[in-house]
């Protein structure tokens, strides 16, 4: 288990003889959640002042332990933070270690002011803070070494955890300096800000594919995930979830058969005032196997609630109805007057694009372990949003959030699923009910049917082209559940352009693309029915996973309607005019790179094969990584699509760990392909129909295409890589299918039946 940082004596400005700490803190963000009757701000405010910091410590043996406030779910972010610190600190990579932070606000993200991991934000938002923390350590060590050696600090060279004075040939290791107790420099916020950081040409660590620090633990079974937590006296909980995704209530629980299961302790019906869950029951027993047996033996009578008759079809019908209303939703983008421009356009294209419900399904099923110890509630769980999840745990326990300690674990996959806190509720309430620590593990069936899924989406796009074939107007309506609004945190919502109140930009991000279109609007329309029936979450890449599906398909449709090459039309639209200056050019260059790498347009492909392109500015306009894809597919007469190759280029500005970036981009691209072709969940009678990996079927090894990844590092600021490549693949495949066989499919996933039907049309 990782060390619990919260219980360590906080280091102060007095840099001790044993170790010293340097770093930064953050400004605050007030958090709360929408719920029934609990309205106080639930998260402790972040400190307003800089405090002596927290991001790493150097022990007398010279080992540097970086504390990572980010959830590590396979993106190796802890290792990345260590790498950024090591660059400025001058430490040898073999001396670097990582540990995972607790939910103490001192570990909050320096930009976001909370502990949340998502949005492909971590590297870009922590690069500066970790660099300055590392540099401050180097300065403190250097000054101490100078005093010990009796030489001017300015003549010292720091490299590989050693401080040397070339003139006198004297040198000291970091370990020796720490042991000397002379490293006593402290830094104020202004001091930190004033530090001159290295320029990229001075980097010796950033841009190097050093081995990820978490990998050795993950090949011998010693990495500890939430599911691996064992506490003394702990008992086990198995869930019984209702047939309806949300809104059911438990009418009665008959535990007479469960009582005959050896080791059975109690059936706990959740009373969830946080409204995260509805109608859940936990069977608690001495072992998980017995808890599962007891859970199966419970006879529970439900009231299905208001959503019990809803299906995917009802959600889609409602979405179409909402889109048809002139006063629906709020404007996310409003440039010029598209409706007027359609009136004078030479050609108007209209199309509807849809995506089905998608399930996160990380390999580690949801779980949490709760233990009440004195006044403190301890939670052990791999979680992406410790700040809010701690508040939900507190809400489930009926205590103040300041009494909750979240022990972070390695995450057996996150993909956005572990931004949610539902697993806290059964663990906390079962632990409270039986007076012992309880670990609750979801079955795969619980995990899939109770996912905070990517919502079903419906988009209507209308494009107007003038007599010269120039795109002059685009309207784009996006109808979906609103995953981020569900958090109840105003700071995560955005003002609407038409001042009709805040909107959930995490449903429309991406639609504010970098193409120049003089008349352009985007409406964000909340599908309340879907929002209530299928509480949605942030699934790897969130909105750009559907908005670019629509935009990048439509751009292709425009190209074909105007007789242009789809890739060259994009180059033309990425002219960098006005607000698109800078980003558009980077995206254009990235697209050209992908085209070059894929040999786009250079050879005639066999019958039934085609290449398609797409390019995106995921995740958000302000945090974009410039990403382009060329998909090469073969389509069988049956409509079955085989992806032969995905060529992905991405401009990430600065790459910290090139091999790690390639791993992320490849994984993200394959996620995109899996969502494009293989993953589909459906709602029927208010419940998710897919329950395990036989009916919900992510990509397997036999379906792996060739993937070529090219990373462009042009010295701009580091951007994120965990998500953007997810969003570019589906439209690239859809466009490739069209180029191969003339079949335009506008719904995800692209099934053989849909392709075949479109081929005939």
């Amino acid at each position, binding site marked *: 288990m990782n060390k619990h940082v919260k219980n360590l004596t906080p280091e102060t400005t007095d840099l001790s003889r044993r170790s010293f700490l340097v770093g930064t803190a953050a400004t605050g963000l007030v958090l709360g959640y929408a719920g029934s009757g609990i309205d106080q701000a639930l998260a402790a405010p972040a400190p307003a002042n800089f405090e002596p910091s927290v991001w790493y410590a150097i022990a007398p043996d010279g080992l540097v332990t970086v504390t990572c406030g980010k959830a590590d*779910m*396979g*993106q*190796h972010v802890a290792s990345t933070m260590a790498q950024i610190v090591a660059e400025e600190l001058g430490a040898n990579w073999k001396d670097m270690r990582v540990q995972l932070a607790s939910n103490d606000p001192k570990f909050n993200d320096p930009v976001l002011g909370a502990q949340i991991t998502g949005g492909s934000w971590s590297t870009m938002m922590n690069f500066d803070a970790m660099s300055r923390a590392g540099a401050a350590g180097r300065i403190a060590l250097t000054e101490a070494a100078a005093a010990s050696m009796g030489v001017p600090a300015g003549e010292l060279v720091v490299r590989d955890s050693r401080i040397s004075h070339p003139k006198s040939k004297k040198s000291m290791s970091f370990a020796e300096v720490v042991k000397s107790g002379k490293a006593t420099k402290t830094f104020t916020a202004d001091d930190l800000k004033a530090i001159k950081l290295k320029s990229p040409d001075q980097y010796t660590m950033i841009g190097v*594919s050093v*081995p*990820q620090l*978490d*990998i*050795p*633990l*993950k*090949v*011998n*079974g*010693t*990495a*500890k*995930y939430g*599911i*691996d937590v*064992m506490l003394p006296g702990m008992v*086990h909980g198995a869930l019984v979830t209702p047939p309806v995704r949300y809104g059911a209530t438990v009418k009665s629980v008959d535990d007479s058969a469960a009582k005959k299961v*050896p080791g059975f302790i109690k059936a706990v019906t959740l009373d969830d005032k946080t409204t995260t869950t509805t109608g859940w029951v936990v069977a608690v027993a001495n*072992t*998980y*196997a017995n808890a599962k047996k007891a859970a199966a033996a419970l006879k529970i009578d439900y009231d299905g609630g208001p959503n019990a008759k809803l299906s995917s079809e009802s959600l889609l019908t409602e979405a179409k109805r909402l889109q048809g209303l002139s006063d629906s939703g709020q404007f996310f983008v409003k440039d010029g007057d598209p409706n007027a421009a359609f009136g004078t356009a030479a050609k108007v294209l209209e199309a509807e694009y849809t995506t089905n419900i998608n399930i996160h*399904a*990380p*390999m*580690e*099923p949801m779980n949490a372990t709760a233990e009440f110890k004195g006044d403190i509630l301890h939670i052990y769980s791999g979680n992406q949003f410790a700040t809010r999840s701690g508040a939900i745990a507190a809400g489930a326990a009926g205590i103040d959030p300041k009494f909750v300690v979240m022990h972070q674990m*390695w*995450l*057996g*996959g*996150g*993909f956005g699923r572990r931004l949610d806190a539902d697993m806290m509720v059964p663990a906390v309430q079962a632990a409270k009910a039986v007076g012992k620590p309880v670990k609750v*593990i979801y*079955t*795969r069936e619980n995990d899939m049917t109770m996912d905070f899924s990517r919502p079903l989406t419906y988009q209507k796009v209308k494009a107007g082209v003038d007599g010269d074939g120039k795109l002059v107007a685009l309207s784009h309506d996006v109808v979906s559940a609103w995953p981020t609004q569900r958090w109840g945190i105003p700071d995560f919502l955005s003002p609407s352009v038409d001042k009709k109140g805040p909107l959930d930009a995490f449903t429309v991000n991406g639609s504010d693309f970098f193409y120049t279109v003089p008349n352009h609007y985007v409406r964000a329309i909340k599908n309340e029915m879907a929002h209530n029936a299928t509480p949605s979450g942030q699934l790897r890449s969130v909105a750009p996973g559907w908005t670019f599906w629509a935009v990048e398909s439509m751009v292709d449709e425009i190209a074909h309607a105007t007789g242009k090459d789809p890739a060259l039309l994009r180059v033309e639209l990425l002219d960098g005019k006005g607000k698109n200056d800078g980003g558009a050019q980077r995206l254009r260059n990235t697209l050209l790179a992908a085209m070059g790498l894929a040999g786009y347009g250079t050879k005639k492909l066999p019958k039934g094969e085609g290449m398609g392109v797409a390019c995106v500015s995921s995740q958000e306009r302000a945090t974009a990584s410039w990403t382009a894809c060329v998909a090469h597919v073969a389509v069988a007469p049956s409509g079955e699509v085989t992806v032969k190759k995905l060529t992905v280029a991405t401009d990430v500005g600065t790459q910290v760990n090139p*091999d*790690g970036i390639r*791993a*992320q981009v*490849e*994984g993200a691209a*394959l*996620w995109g392909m*899996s969502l494009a072709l293989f993953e589909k969940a459906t709602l029927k009678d208010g419940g998710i129909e897919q329950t*395990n*990996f*036989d009916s919900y079927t*992510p*990509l*397997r*090894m*036999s379906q*792996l295409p060739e*993937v070529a990844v090219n990373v462009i590092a042009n010295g701009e600021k580091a951007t994120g890589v965990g998500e953007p490549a997810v969003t570019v693949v589906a439209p690239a495949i859809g466009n490739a299918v069209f180029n191969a066989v003339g079949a335009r499919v506008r719904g995800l996933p692209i099934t053989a039946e849909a392709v075949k039907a479109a081929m005939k049309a």
Partner: protein
Amino acid sequence: MPNLNINGRNMSVEAASDTPLLWVIREQLQMTGTKFGCGAGLCGACTVHLNGEAVRSCQTSLADAVGKKITTIEGLSAKGEHPLQKAWVAEQVPQCGYCQSGQIMQAAALLSKNTNPTKEEVVAHMDGNLCRCMTYSRIQKAIMRAASDMRTASATGSERRAT
């Protein structure tokens, strides 16, 4: 009380004979390297060896494991230096890492019989093991690297024996 032979040691456990071996290993023996993924034999995260064969421990009862040699990721090699484990590090395979114990155990069963598999044989053997991070291409590369290392080691070993 049933006795299990696991990673070369005999250990007695207290559980009903129909308990899935997975939960006996994880909870009773507190060896948590073997993971729960689906409970239905669909993902491979719980793969262990029973007499050298890769099996899904979530689909194997305690009764079925008694009297057989069980090997988990913890016992694959004494110091975690099985050629596959070294190759997994060399190729930087794991992302979240949760499925990787099962991937390695599944691959180890293949290489114990065939140190020169074709790519097709690797895919056919590994297709039941899901990786949600989609590290498949690195898994393939690592298996090929380990196979090559095992062939080299065995060739070197024969030469030594010959001289």
